[in-house]
């Protein structure tokens, strides 16, 4: 084993440890959410899906935004490892996107009475997901690794600029999607029907699940990044 492969193995080992810790944390949060947290006043048990849905949305957006950030850095530094990271982050983003787009309709069926209500937020998330499906299609159609890195970075940056338009859509147009439960303004006493901020007993597991999903993201990306680095190193060694 060369020192290069040793270093890659170390990254992967740490990634796997963080991933395991993240999975245990998610399991722990679900025990708390199902066993020790009361049902939400309006949505009942269906609300409990939020502990996966909302943090998966956070992890997916973080993953895709980071693809754009490392894409921009790639054009500046031209370090191929940035592309390996970008691809790892996009792959993990797709995984969280799958979780988000699966749990959304399950919740929607119970609360809205429809699997898919063409809510702008869910729909534009699907668009972003499809955009990254295009990112992988383009990458797989290119042989030259440098070209793959450049084009991947371009799609990553374009996708990142699409993200504000997603948020713009949510806030400007009629949406069936519930308002964010974090940072919601307090209800004035004279305004009936206003949804108050989430009570602490429901909010605590949610905040913890954001932390757990961030850990999962880090663990997944480190492992995937290690695999990407190992593939590149093996290819370089075989070419020698």
């Amino acid at each position: 084993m060369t020192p290069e492969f040793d270093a890659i193995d170390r990254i992967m080992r740490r990634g796997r440890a963080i991933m395991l810790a993240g999975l245990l944390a998610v399991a722990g949060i679900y025990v708390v959410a199902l066993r020790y947290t009361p049902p939400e006043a309006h949505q009942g048990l269906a609300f409990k899906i939020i502990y996966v849905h909302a943090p998966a949305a956070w992890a997916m957006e973080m993953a895709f935004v980071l693809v754009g950030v490392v894409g921009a850095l790639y054009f500046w530094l031209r370090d191929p490892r940035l592309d390996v990271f970008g691809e790892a982050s996009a792959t993990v983003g797709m995984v969280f996107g799958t979780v988000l787009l699966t749990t959304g309709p399950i919740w929607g069926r119970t609360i809205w009475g429809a699997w898919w209500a063409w809510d702008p937020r869910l729909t534009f998330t699907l668009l972003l997901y499809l955009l990254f499906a295009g990112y992988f299609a383009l990458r797989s159609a290119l042989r030259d690794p440098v070209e793959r890195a450049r084009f991947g970075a371009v799609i990553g940056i374009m996708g990142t600029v699409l993200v504000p338009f997603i948020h713009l859509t949510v806030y400007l147009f009629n949406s069936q999607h519930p308002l964010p439960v974090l940072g919601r303004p307090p209800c004035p006493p004279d305004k009936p029907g206003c949804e108050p901020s989430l009570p602490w007993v429901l909010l605590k597991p949610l905040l913890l699940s954001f932390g757990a999903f961030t850990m999962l993201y880090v663990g997944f990306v480190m492992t995937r990044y290690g695999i990407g680095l190992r593939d590149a190193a093996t290819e370089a060694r075989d070419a020698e």
Partner: protein
Amino acid sequence: MTVGRAALAIAAKDLRIEWRHRTAFATSVVFAVLVLMVFVFARDQGSVSLTTLAPTVLWVMLALATVVTLNRAFLLERENAALDGILLAPVSATALFWGKWLANIALVMVVEAVAIPLWVMFFNVEPSVRLAGIGAVAVLAAIGFTAPGTLFSAMAVRTRFAELLLPVLLLPFVIPPLFFASQATVRILGDAPAGDIWGWLRLLALYDIAFLALATMLFPMVMDQ
């Protein structure tokens, strides 16, 4: 040669080639009419009137015709490695992007100029001053479609699956301007207050500016050899 003059020279070259063959123009117009026909025959005649369907069909037709038109932009340059010739010429990549984009938008607008009157005829839209408003929306939407489209066609053409990859890459970027444009069209046709229409046009313009600027910035990276 300044960037502007080089861009105009490249656009003029592309349009001259198109003028000689008229393949992309003719194909896109025929394609647009076929899309109209598909919608008419696929609808439930009993419950969906042509008037209700009109704005939807207009934007699906224009978006898909744009994708078909954009496919040709860099495929032209693939023959005889013509792109290498342009890259060897002392013109910047920015000029190349603007030249290609100008040629694309000119061609898309010519296709729109033929397709929109056909849509008016087939869908019995009342010809009135409202059509000028729809024309303005179509110009703004064409900018939103072609700016990322020109960038993506330069990337897709480097693969063996250009015709397949371009729609997959481009359509997620077509949907926001398509949504804004179709909302504006519905309001124009329904005689909504000007302020209501203006809000959607502003969003469309914002999208155009953002992606035209971004595509201009990123294009040199795509061409970087």
